[in-house]
């Protein structure tokens, strides 16, 4: 390995510091596109799945239908899903975003529903006894108690989206996937390995951010956690 020496590019080494220094701007741009795509996907998916899950949770049939549809979409391989979206959204970047949102939705709906269902009924009863209305119970009792399950879904959806987004290169919107594909066509090992490793690191970083965020927004769990460890 000619790490950090001039000829690692010529030798086509797997690890090459010179690749990062010479192609710095391209790598940063790809990383930025990847981050934007992931954040957009998860934010849209969360914004859609919350009202959807709340709307169907009282109806057994609507709930079953939605979960069945979610499982079916989840079963479709990403490459095929992008292919099926092409007639609707065309060969443009929006196709990638829509596909990724669909996958995240299927994960999030499941977890939002599970989180709301696992709220103890006596807690809801107590809130009702205190004179709270339905909306207030939902916003101040049920959703906060569903947060751990929602966060578990967000973590799975985010990490999966980072990995899945690489395929977006097919329509020129793959972030680090663009680099992996370019490295494949040019037989450029350092480019493929660097982009792959960055992809995994990005997934881990997103996961850590979400764990931190959950820690911040569920103070009651934090108190329990410090009690248990002290």
């Amino acid at each position: 390995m000619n790490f950090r020496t001039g000829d690692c590019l010529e030798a086509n080494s797997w690890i090459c510091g010179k690749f990062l220094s010479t192609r710095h701007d391209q790598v940063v741009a790809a990383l930025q596109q990847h981050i934007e795509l992931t954040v957009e996907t998860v934010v849209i998916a969360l914004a859609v799945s919350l009202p959807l899950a709340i709307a169907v949770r009282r109806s057994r049939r609507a709930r079953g239908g939605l979960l069945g549809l979610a499982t079916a979409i989840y079963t479709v391989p990403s490459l095929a899903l992008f292919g099926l979206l092409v007639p609707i959204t065309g060969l443009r970047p929006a196709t990638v975003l829509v596909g990724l949102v669909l996958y995240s939705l299927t994960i999030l709906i499941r977890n939002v529903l599970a989180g709301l269902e696992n709220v103890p009924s006596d807690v809801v009863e107590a809130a009702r006894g205190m004179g709270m209305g339905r909306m207030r119970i939902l916003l101040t009792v049920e959703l906060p108690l569903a947060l751990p399950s929602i966060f578990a879904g967000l973590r799975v959806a985010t990490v999966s989206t980072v990995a899945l987004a690489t395929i977006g290169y097919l329509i020129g919107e793959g972030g680090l996937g663009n680099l992996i594909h370019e490295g494949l066509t040019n037989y450029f090992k350092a480019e493929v390995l660097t982009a792959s490793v960055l992809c995994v690191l990005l997934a881990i970083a997103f996961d850590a951010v979400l764990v931190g965020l959950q820690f911040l927004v569920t103070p009651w769990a934090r108190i329990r956690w410090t009690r248990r460890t002290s």
Partner: protein
Amino acid sequence: MDQADVVKTISDVYSWLTDGAHWRGSDGVIVRTAQHVELSAIALLIAVAVALPIAMWLGHIRKGGFLAVNVSNIGRAVPTFAVLTLLALTSLGIADRTVVLALVLFGIPPVLTNAYVGVREVDRQTVEAAKGMGMTGLQQLLRVELPLAVPLVLNGIRLAAVQIVATMTIASLVSGPGLGRIIQEGFATQNKPELEAGALLVVVLALVVEGGFAWLQRVVDPVRRAHRGDRTPPPAEPALIGAASFVSAEDQTHNAIS
């Protein structure tokens, strides 16, 4: 997208699919489907053969939970496309063997995690009773823990099968074999009917695999089978219900996305 576009898309895809030339030959639908199914089946068998004994043993001795559960999380964070591309650039190159290797790597985590949780969550009192009856460790594992863990073991195998079929599709992006090639060629040549028809074929295959394993899960469950024909429904199994909900939060979501 107006009505005329919808009609045109459907008729284009229909005429692609009904053109016999697209089905015959070494790059026809029939050969590509056979490759897809064959390599996926081999990879699934290897993944189960590797992961199931390890998971059952770890579940039996109730150790290694951190590893068994986190292997799924790691599997999710690694892009299948990246692994296939890295393999393609090694001296191994893309051959049937390397594709199977990649498929096995992505098939192992769901089997390992689900089987581990399944065995581990078997009611301890039941296992104690088996021990009290004089069963050896292996007998407890094979005659008590495994049958009770069957629903989750099969769930893991179903998730692995769906994951493998999906990963096999991605293999086409590094010139691997299988049905994904039709989609990949469609994208590469901007041939919409071809990529749409290919996508439809892959979707059908994935749903058949998912449906088949879901059916198997219902039919094979020994607890449910033992109660078939009974007037009373099978007793609620607290340990298994607990396991199922634990898995649904963390790992049932480890599904076919790749």
